[in-house]
């Protein structure tokens, strides 16, 4: 980790040595990795990045990158696709989709897990663990399996079947916890105090969350080293949005771009929208809620980074918006129908929120916009309700004609 200088508290500025610890000893504020940006600026260039691997590790100078032994399944460098048909339907001139379904376990979580577990193994940890709403569980179990680490994954017991199957298949321990994700998270925070396990999103959180910055790096690089006017980002803990902002700022700090003025918009579903509520009320603090949403990957009622996500969207002329629960499935279908992408509930929330933002005038028609589509729909087919064919026929041309007509 050549360019990492230590851990700094985001709240009180206290500095800490580089150890797996997420909360400040002084004030419990979140710890952040600090870098030697002038040294990075002197060595990084658009060309050196272009010559790197087609994974998040092309940005290794801006990540906690162990000197050897990365656990790398190829996370990142996902497509940024132009979405003209969805843009036309919504009334936007230029819309791009950053589609994370092509990651190794089909969600953006592979970005954060490759970082956290690479660091964990370099520090001698043998057990990979996490509190998860599903996507993270899949990714931790897969990366652990591929590296010979043990995995111990903790999930709310009512998760979607595909997310459970997509974890157990890798052979680690999967523990279903009765209660909500917030209960699972609390349990894992206690366990992380007692066991020498690498909880990627608890004690390894400062390393883990750095992986999310690579979404910002890729969007800007794929647009030809240009930052878009607006980005729509799903919000659960608020970490992805906060780190996307950090990524944009770092690109300026290391002089890969000459500045940006990108508006960031957070997306939530109304069944769990504590950050959107705080935004609408003009509050700086987020009041926790009990989640009751179909978008289980966004069901964090007490969002750890909600406070910072609010600060980011306000300083960047953005918003946090919540959409009604039925619009989640509508968003999934709208994206599928117009662009041929099948996303999960979090993506449905993002698309429905984008639609709302354009309708409300918070995103203007001529603003070049990027929507983060963070995972695939096959993991959350329950959200579509009952699914069946358009019609059921015998193998007969006449019967097909009866149903679909002569054309």
């Amino acid at each position, binding site marked *: 980790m050549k360019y990492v200088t230590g851990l700094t508290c985001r*709240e009180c500025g206290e500095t800490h040595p580089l150890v797996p610890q*997420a*909360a*400040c*000893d*002084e*004030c*419990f*504020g*979140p710890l952040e990795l600090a870098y030697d940006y002038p040294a990075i600026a002197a060595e990084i260039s658009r060309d050196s990045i272009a010559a790197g691997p087609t994974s998040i590790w092309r940005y290794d100078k801006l990540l906690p990158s162990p000197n050897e032994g990365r656990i790398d399944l190829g996370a990142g460098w996902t497509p940024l696709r132009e979405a003209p048909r969805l843009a036309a339907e919504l009334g936007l001139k230029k819309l791009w989709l950053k589609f994370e379904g092509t990651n190794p376990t089909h969600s*953006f979580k592979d970005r954060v897990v490759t970082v956290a577990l690479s660091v964990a193994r370099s520090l001698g940890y043998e057990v990979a663990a*996490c*509190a*998860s*709403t599903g*996507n*993270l569980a899949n990714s931790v179990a897969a990366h652990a399996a591929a590296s010979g680490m043990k995995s111990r994954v903790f999930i709310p017991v009512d998760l979607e079947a595909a997310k459970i199957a997509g974890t157990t298949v890798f052979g680690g321990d999967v523990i279903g916890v009765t*209660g909500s*994700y*917030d*209960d*699972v*998270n*609390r349990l894992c*925070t*206690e366990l992380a*105090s*007692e066991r020498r396990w690498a909880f990627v*999103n*608890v004690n390894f*959180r400062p390393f883990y*969350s750095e992986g999310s910055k690579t979404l910002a790096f890729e969007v800007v690089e794929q647009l030809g080293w240009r930052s878009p006017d607006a980005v729509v*980002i*799903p*919000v*659960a*803990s*608020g*970490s*992805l*949005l906060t780190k996307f902002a950090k990524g944009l700022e770092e690109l300026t700090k290391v002089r890969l771009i000459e500045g940006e003025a990108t508006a960031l918009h957070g997306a939530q579903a109304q069944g769990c929208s504590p950050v959107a509520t705080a935004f609408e009320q003009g509050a700086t*603090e987020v*009041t*926790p809620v*009990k989640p009751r949403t179909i978008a289980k*990957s*966004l*069901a*964090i009622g*007490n*969002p*750890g*980074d909600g*406070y910072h996500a609010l600060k980011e969207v306000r300083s960047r002329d953005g918003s946090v918006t919540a959409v009604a629960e039925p619009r989640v499935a509508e968003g999934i279908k709208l994206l599928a129908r117009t662009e041929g992408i099948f996303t999960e509930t*979090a993506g449905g929330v993002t698309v429905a929120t984008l639609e709302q933002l354009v309708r409300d005038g918070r995103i203007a028609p001529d603003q070049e916009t990027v929507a983060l589509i*963070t995972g695939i729909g096959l993991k959350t087919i329950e959200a579509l309700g009952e699914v069946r064919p358009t019609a059921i026929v015998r193998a007969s041309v006449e019967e097909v004609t009866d149903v679909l007509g002569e054309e």
Partner: protein
Amino acid sequence: MSVTVKVPTQLRSITGGAAEISGNGGRLTEVIDDLEGRYPGLRKKLLDETGQLRRFVNIYLGEEDVRFLGGLSTEIDDGKTLAIIPAVAGGAM
């Protein structure tokens, strides 16, 4: 009322390394006063300058976050467990 208080690693330098301590008080605020008497410096870690629970500190009474109960005025029944947990949420986005 006597309660068991679970202490996170960040606060164990104040509790002499103890992971569990006991406290007394009818309400959470009184329990914190009681603990401060025996473990000076603890209150400052839990409460900010205005006397409110710090933003990144969660305290649970049994299974429930005290923010869903009465906050610092939450009534504490005898024999319950209080857990002090740093707020590091985020398995999802």
